[in-house]
């Protein structure tokens, strides 16, 4: 029993949250002037920068699709993002996998047919890592895409939840993630309630899945509120400037 106690009998998690509480989320958009759209998002100590370029002419002729745009996602983790400095190569399979998750998440949501024969690039950079990278990336990408003015059917909000000790807990931080917790990440279209991504890499008892899943869904809705607020504020800000 040398493992860390992740949830005290008093119902507090390691950082003082209760199981169904998200970490503090802060976000802004248009942080990079070079990019067409960009966003910066923090889930507690997990910090992500997202930049969207496009729609623009496709880099390689061979890839061009005549009826829709191609989505290209690149995902990177800064060497300084964790306590121990570690450099990853660009071809790290883990990074490529994450990129493809994000790509799959957005392909059905971005209305690519509007941008035939073009390419949309999403660059994601983890600046600080404290668990829940995938959810942070998806949320940041949503904001950056909106900031870039790319047509989407709806917001995409992602949230993780896992089975901690004997309860479902939401938005796991790094310590909780790394002590063998079963974790589910879902990406949801909050208004329609559709799921565009569901990812789980560890075993979870089927009886517990529903509870974890519902909790993650709740989280998505809460996250939607928060990022929607930021987007609206930015939009209002812009509108004011145009007057």
């Amino acid at each position, binding site marked *: 029993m040398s493992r860390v106690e992740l949830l005290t009998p*008093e119902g*507090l998690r390691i950082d*003082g949250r209760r199981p169904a509480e998200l970490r503090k989320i802060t976000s802004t958009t248009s942080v990079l002037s070079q990019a067409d759209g960009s966003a910066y998002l923090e889930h507690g*100590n997990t910090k992500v920068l997202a930049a969207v370029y496009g729609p623009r002419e496709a880099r390689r002729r061979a890839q061009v699709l005549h009826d829709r745009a191609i989505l290209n996602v690149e995902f990177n983790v800064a060497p300084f993002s964790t306590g121990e400095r570690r450099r990853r190569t660009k071809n790290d399979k883990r990074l490529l996998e994450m990129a493809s998750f994000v790509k799959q998440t957005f392909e059905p949501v971005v209305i690519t047919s509007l941008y035939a024969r073009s390419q949309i690039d999403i660059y994601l950079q983890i600046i600080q890592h404290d668990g829940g990278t995938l959810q942070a990336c998806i949320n940041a990408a949503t904001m950056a895409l909106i900031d870039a003015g790319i047509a989407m059917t709806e917001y995409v909000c992602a949230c993780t939840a896992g089975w901690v000790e004997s309860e479902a807990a939401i938005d796991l931080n790094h*310590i909780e993630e790394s002590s063998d917790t079963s974790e589910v990440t879902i990406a949801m279209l909050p208004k329609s309630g559709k799921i565009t991504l569901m990812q789980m890499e560890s075993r979870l*008892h089927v009886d517990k899945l529903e509870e974890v899943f519902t909790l993650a869904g709740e989280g998505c809705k809460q996250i939607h509120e928060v990022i929607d607020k930021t987007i609206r504020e930015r939009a209002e800000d812009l509108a004011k400037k145009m007057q």
Partner: protein
Amino acid sequence: MLRQKQFVKKTRSGNVVKVVKEHYLRDDIWCSVETCKACDHSTTVLSSTPSINKLFPRPHYIVPDTNIFMNQIDVMEKSQITNVIVLQTVLEEVKHLSLPIHKRVRDMINNKEKHFHVFSNEHHRETFIEKLKDESPNDRNDRAIRVAAKWYANHIRNLKPEVSIVLMTDDAANRAKAIADGLQAVSVKWYIEALDNNELLDMISDTKELDDGKQMIYEEHLSPAHLSNGIKSGRFFQGKLGISSHNYLEGSVYTKIDGQDGTILIVGRENLNRAVDGDIIAVELLPKSEWRTTPTGVVIDEEEEKKEEESLKAEQKAAATQEDAVMTTATQDTPQPCGKVVGIIRRNWRQYCGFIDRKTVSTAAGSSAPINVLFFAMEHKIPKIKFRTRQAHSLLGQRVIVAIDSWPKTSKYPIGHFIRSLGEAGDKSTETEVLLLEHDVPFHEFSKQVLSFLPVEGENWVVQPEHFNGREDFRQLNVCSIDPPGCTDIDDALHVVPLPNGNFQVGVHIADVTHFVKPGNVMDQEAANRGTTVYLVDKRIDMLPGLLGTNLCSLRSNVERLAFSCIWELNDSAEIVNVRFTKSVIASKASLTYEEAQNRIDDERMQDDVTKGIRTLNMLAKKLKQKRLDMGALTLASPEVRFNLERDTQDPVDVEMKELKETNALVEEFMLLANISVARKIYEKFPDSAMLRCHPTPPSVNFEKLEKAVARMGITIDHSTSKTLSDSLDNAVIPDEPYFNKLLRIMTTRCMMQALYFCSGTITEQEFKHYGLATDIYTHFTSPIRRYSDVMVHRQLHAAIDSDVAYGTELTDKEAMNELCGVLNHRNRMAQQAARSSVELFTHLFFKNKVEEEEGYVIRILKNAFIVLVPKYGIEGIVYASAMVAKTDAAPTSSTTGAETAVVAAAPAKVSQAVLVYNPETDSLQSTEPLSEGQVPKVQIQLFQKVMVQISIDDDLKGGGEGGMRQKLKMSLLKPFIEGISVHGVCNKDDPEAKAFSSSANSDSSLANGTALKKRGGQEEATKRAGKRSKA
């Protein structure tokens, strides 16, 4: 809800890493006081009218600091202490310092009657504090405790009825600061003194008061940083200390020396440097010149014991010149590495059962003034413990529990405190409780919570139609069970059906415990913790509640029961054609005892189906057994006895050796077959996490002594494989000594390693081997009612045969499984030892007011004693090889006591003098007369030698006479007669042989030397060694 962040730096082993953690502060952490209206709590823990203490006029809640829990946990557990606020800071510190104490605190918190409330002050907005610059973590925590106490004091200030907060700390500086802050602060001692309760007062651990030594007796321990550096650089060695069961001043550590497994011997009080059995210690090797060769163990010298007593009486002059009991012997053997303890990495202190040394009780009878007394633990390996009590006189002659608090370098003995008294020594129920406690057997009643998981129908539970879901219906089969007489927890039953093709369908049906015990619930946790059912002579400590164990799961005859079946098709020569497993419903046709089954086999007139089945099974079992023996399975022996108890008083009236019948072997063969088949199946499904059982090959060193001894008789033992060993055992027969072979088997058993549970992912497949059974894989499947390992195996097997079964990580988590194996191995070992101790206890009761003369065999030679096994009673005892000779300058008081020895003669003080000396060349004891080359010594005691001994109980010692309450049976040598050691028999004086033996002796029976009865000490040590090895 306010959230803030805080950054914490933390270093991990090796490189320094900055860890950033979030820390949210909340304002929804409630005070939990019943009358508080400001807080939004739904349930409250702290009662509105907490207790009052003379010191404080108002009712109050206690806020203890960390050290109160660490040092005074026994006091805190008392029912008088209620309404305590446990701060998160304190709880975390306790957890960091000691997990067992943390668990006890948690148990108190869960106990509703204690009203312990955990206040998460670290996450409370108003009580969280940042560490100040230059403030040590300890000071910061002390301040956090004060701040939280202050917050509480303010928070409940205006409540009606009035309540207050009392900060409890033994740190005077902290108290002063608290009082300056306007808080009420108190030390435990003051608080308890104001309660006027002697028992509670005795339980306070007060190291300072007892530690009156001015002189440094021991070397200082090195700092943890120093130790870890030393261990890394190879200068120190880390390991678990095992104290010899014959001498508490000699211990050994099994560790890696220069990359090789080896044992470091630690001899003497100074070198042991306050380490207690089981502690994880750091050892430094002594220079080679100080290494020594020792025989297997040295019985502690009475002389040194006596000196200890004296030095205690004159406590001020702590005898620093204490010699060690060990005599060095110059031999040509390579000396064993010796070392000294330089530091203690983890203590293994627990609570000890034992008794107070009468001689240290110096006050007049009836006095309740506090005095310091010495305590002997029942376990010989534990040093005497000094503690302070006000009830010394009422505790004399009782079994008491004492805990060690500390062992300062100025104190010769560890310092402890009294916990509770168990009752009169020698009383059967008290002694039974002692042995259960000593072996860490959880024996409390099942809690209501556990019982709530039993089927609601209770006794009336029956198999319902829905139970047939996923089960085969075997109710028509002629299933029967064969068990020992009086067995109520029947967990296995058998059947056989001849098949048309000439083969046989054989089924083993095991009680389906897992149908009732679902993973993870309280009943399951309780069973996992108990690990096994413990069988004592007169009672049984169940692993599962009686309703399940003896009724609903028990495969009784003529009722329908759920079972887990293993069905083979065996051909005529008992080879497995195929095997399958299924859950089933059976209705046993007969539950027989071994004897009944045997009679049925033998009785030609019985021709019913069940009997015919048993005969077929018997035929198959014999073939299976032969095959197993051909593979090299061992047939070992143990001197087990059975007591016939008187019905009402449960006192033993007769002893008989356990008898084995053919039918025992019958059941055993099929159980082995089932276990092996199941092991293969679950290993296939769970290659990483199957619960299996292995029996490691014993290392050659275990056999050295035995090989030497039998070589003298022209017998060789080849233990390279179990096959060769089993053959050499079969061949080792001495015609005129029929018991020799049995004896040899008993002694071979003691050379074996302990069989262990393990998780398949943790060791290589080669190590799965079961040496004793000569099989490559093995597990336990057949007794789920009494073993938890079998419950796990049932779950794994169920998951393996039915892919629809939902199971959680409990079956797949390698780490958790490994941990569980560790617990089960420990419980198993303890259960075995407890069972043995129970037999020992009944042996004592049996010999009450009896003197028996019996034949025995020397089975172990020690430095200055030898151990005799008496086959008739299956008991072992030490016979000392040193005689008591009257001392010329007689000491004023007669006082020879001790851990191991008991002297009957009350006459003047005696000094021990070796009559026989140890000869390491022949591993024997011989008389001391000078020998010329080639001459045979007059008297020699050798391994396997047949001797006559007198067994009796020592009534003088019962109840704490002269302090030596630990042992009550003595064994004295009758023949060969050796002057100074032997006693004269009472009944066979006319025996010509005895006369021949004693021809040269002028007898003086008052010179009888007492002997300690230590049953199977050797095996226990082997057990311990095996355990240690598995740790390493």
